[in-house]
């Protein structure tokens, strides 16, 4: 942390630099860095062969596939419907729009366990929605996708909305006056502006979905090899006091999340650069 030296050698007028920075660094060191570093330190107790054996065990690999494919499916659903919802909320007027706009944030405010039991009872074979289907939704990967779609719903909408709001009418007018149809204007003018926001929203929803636990455990059915998500593998190993095993799987998840976080920042940086030039 010695790299955090003061660049500004000129006299600072505003007080509290050392206090606020010191406090911030102490806080994140004790509550974020030290705890997270334990994952990597604890994994050191395993040999490389043991580590590989744990993280490539068939049940673990099956869980990566379940987590990854369901998070991807939910993310794509959110891209399609989230973009439509954002479009409708920004461009059209209809009754109760303000309330509906406010409700979009419900997945952020509603505890995940509450969402989990509500969705499970809706999509169970005898539930309000489940009864209309002659195949199972809850307790299959479909159920996981539904829970993850709910959890990720606000991300795409809330990243696309402000961008859509800021597209100036003149650009669309110019496109129209040059003879473009509405669809052409959308494809060639509006969509390129939205694309970075959609991608950011997708990445945020996807990252959240990969780690999600509360809403999924109820609806997943949690069958090993079939509907077991990776966070649940960690949970199961912990309940068996297999701390080394849990930690090894956690390393895989953490590294994946960090790569995602890095990609999100990269997308945003590239998008900002595009607008500056």
């Amino acid at each position: 942390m010695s790299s955090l030296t003061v660049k500004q050698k000129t006299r600072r007028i505003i007080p509290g630099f050392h206090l606020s920075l010191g406090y911030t660094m102490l806080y994140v060191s004790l509550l974020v860095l030290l705890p997270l570093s334990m994952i990597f330190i604890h994994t050191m107790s395993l040999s490389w062969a043991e580590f590989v054996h744990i993280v490539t065990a068939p049940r673990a690999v099956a869980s990566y596939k379940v987590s990854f494919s369901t998070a991807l499916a939910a993310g794509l659903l959110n891209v399609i419907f989230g973009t439509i919802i954002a479009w409708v909320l920004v461009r059209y007027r209809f009754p109760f729009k303000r309330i509906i706009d406010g409700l979009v944030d419900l997945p952020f405010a509603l505890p995940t366990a509450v969402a989990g039991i509500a969705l499970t009872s809706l999509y169970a074979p005898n539930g309000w929605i489940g009864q209309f289907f002659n195949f199972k939704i809850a307790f299959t990967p479909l159920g996981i996708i539904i829970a993850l779609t709910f959890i990720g719903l606000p991300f795409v909408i809330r990243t696309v909305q402000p961008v859509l709001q800021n597209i100036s009418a003149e650009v669309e007018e110019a496109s129209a006056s040059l003879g473009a149809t509405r669809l052409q204007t959308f494809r060639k003018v509006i969509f390129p502006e939205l694309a970075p926001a959609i991608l950011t929203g997708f990445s945020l929803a996807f990252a959240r979905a990969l780690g999600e636990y509360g809403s999924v455990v109820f609806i997943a059915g949690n069958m090993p090899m079939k509907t077991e998500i990776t966070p649940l593998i960690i949970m199961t190993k912990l309940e068996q006091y297999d701390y080394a095993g849990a930690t090894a799987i956690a390393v895989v998840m953490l590294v994946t999340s960090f790569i995602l976080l890095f990609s999100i920042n990269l997308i945003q940086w590239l998008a900002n650069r595009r607008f500056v030039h």
Partner: protein
Amino acid sequence: MEQSTFIQQVAPEKNNAVTKSAALQEPRFVRYTLTFIALAFLALFIVLPLVSIFFTAFQKGVDVYVAAITHPDALAAIKLTLTVVAIAVPLNAIFGIMAAWALTKFNFKGKNLLLTIVDLPFAVSPVIAGLVFILLFGSQGLFGDWLFEHDIKIVFALPGIVLATVFVTLPFVARELIPLMQTQGTSEEEASISLGANGFKTFWYVTLPNIKWGLLYGLILCNARAIGEFGAVSVVSGHIRGMTNTMPLHIEILYNEYQFAAAFAVASLMSVIAIITLIVKDIVAWKSKSA
């Protein structure tokens, strides 16, 4: 022209004459179809689950509902959740203000790194957020032996639940304040200091009034997440009924015991909190826009 239609296009404020031309508007059936898709999706994913929670909660009558939420275990869970929130939210509020002050009022090397670290808890699975505190304070953990010798319980007790909650809600206040204070710059604070006010007075009378709505917004989000956190708390709580079960954990136990009406009764309480959160959030967002 199309004033009578149910779903109208929001007119971009610039030039109304041009707006009404067909080239700038989707055909009516497209507008209706898109609106229908959007509303149907939200009805299916947001409204229906919400309605089903309250419906199931009252399905067996008001007596069962009242019995479920006044059960000693339920009351203990509510009390524990409120205790955890009362500790975790103020801690992260103070941190958020400190971090935002350091990150927006000064320039230093490694600023972006620190920003990323502040955001880190959002990228970590809740289950891992719980696991890290087991690795620190559990019986096999780094401080496990020391804690055992001194008879201090952190994991499977209140401190562990508070720590896990602090971890998962750490970025909320900071994240709201940093962009806000960034755009406000430092000139007002500099003026206040040069007029002789001290640092604390400057913060209290100059900075705080400028950031109060953003702060409140962050607090609401932090509060909602702290009340509802499930995965992280589940790992560190040890599930001791009436002792270390928070409201979401209590719901899980009831649900797994097939006491659906009771589970949904407690869930409905939490849904009310969520709805209040959304309303307050909306008011705050509106106030901060008009401020």
